[in-house]
């Protein structure tokens, strides 16, 4: 009896390991490649590295504009979060709670932003933004990212708001507390874990955005991480895969660290709500 249970659990463990390997293998490969000399990557395609080197990271941190790209990406992502969060919170609350003509149609049309292939929008957006002096500025790029983060963010947060008991708001209404105060003092604190998750979502959308950063940011010193990394892979340098892999790790690392910091807080937020 016991042995059959453990056999099943070993099998389950192996299946989980296999699935995890399938999903994590590319990340593992990139991570390992970033510590390997370029010649080894070109010559033999083994998974296990033979020689380890930190040369790729040294050149990433000292020879490329890595720090400039990180700062630029942070600025654009910060703008995106600051611009999109108020819109997402207000929009989600409006769709979830208030009554007005056309609300349902509006909420259906929210996600229609994603119908268009983004490449189609590049030329018209460039034209409009150049008229508004938003080309070659971080703000213009952030506005574009905001436009893509807000509808999905509203949709996500609305689902989160639905999990809050309506009595919370009704109790406030009976006590004579107005809509705006209810939103700020009841709904937002109660939905804080969801709002933080959505802030992270907006941050990552912006952090990884490539197409509009590529077309809207013309000057080299405004480039964000994805654009800078493309410069490493193609562009003026010869293709150095080890270097590119180090760049990929280097671009994921700040987000990863952010996740570690915010994620802990996020989980605490959820469990605090559950205990009380």
């Amino acid at each position, binding site marked *: 009896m016991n042995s059959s249970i453990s056999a099943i659990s070993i099998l389950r463990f192996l299946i989980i390991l296999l699935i995890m390997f399938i999903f994590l293998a590319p990340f593992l490969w990139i991570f390992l490649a970033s510590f390997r000399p370029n010649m080894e990557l070109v010559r033999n395609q083994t998974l296990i590295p033979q020689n380890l080197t930190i040369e790729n990271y040294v050149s990433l941190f000292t020879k490329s504009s890595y720090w400039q790209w990180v700062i630029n990406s942070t600025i654009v992502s910060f703008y995106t979060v600051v611009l999109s969060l108020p819109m997402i919170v207000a929009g989600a609350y409006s769709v979830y709670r208030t009554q007005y003509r056309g609300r349902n149609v509006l909420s259906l049309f929210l996600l229609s932003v994603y119908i268009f292939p983004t490449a189609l929008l590049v030329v018209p957006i460039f034209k409009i933004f150049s008229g508004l002096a938003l080309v070659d500025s971080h703000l213009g790029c952030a506005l574009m990212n905001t436009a893509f983060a807000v509808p999905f963010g509203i949709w996500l947060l609305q689902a989160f708001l639905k999990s809050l*008991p309506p*009595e919370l708001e*009704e109790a406030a*209404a009976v006590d*004579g*507390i107005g809509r705006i105060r209810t939103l700020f003092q009841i709904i937002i*604190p109660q939905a804080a874990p969801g709002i933080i998750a959505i802030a992270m979502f907006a941050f990552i959308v912006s952090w990884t955005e490539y197409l509009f950063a590529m077309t809207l940011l013309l000057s080299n010193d405004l480039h964000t991480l994805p654009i800078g990394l493309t410069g490493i892979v193609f562009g003026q340098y010869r293709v150095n895969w080890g270097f590119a892999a180090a760049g990929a790790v280097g671009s994921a690392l700040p987000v990863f660290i952010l996740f570690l910091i915010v994620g802990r807080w996020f989980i605490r937020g959820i469990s605090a709500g559950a205990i*009380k």
Partner: protein
Amino acid sequence: MASVSLTHLNKEFGNTLAVKNVSVDIADGEFLVFVGPSGCGKTTTLRMVAGLESLSDGEIRIGDRIVNHLPPGDRDVAMVFQNYALYSHMTVEKNLGFALKARGLDGEEIENACFALQKCWISRK
């Protein structure tokens, strides 16, 4: 306290008639209990009195005011929900004080109220 009177109260949700022609007069200070099987409209009636639900037809009077279209906060009513609605991001004192503050009580009065409540709870043990 005040008297409450409901006259020919009706509530429809789509095609379902949830509350049908309810008329009740409740005197000032009277203690009244609604009893009935689930789904018979007790909660809906109470929610209409509190102003959380609009009425399809009829009239609600609290004191000498017709409150049909008044928002809940202006009706000067209190309500305890079936699932108690506590704000989990606030302390007990803040939970208690939140409504009092909205009614214009100052910090000291709220503190006194919380203190009185605490004494009540201790003496009950």
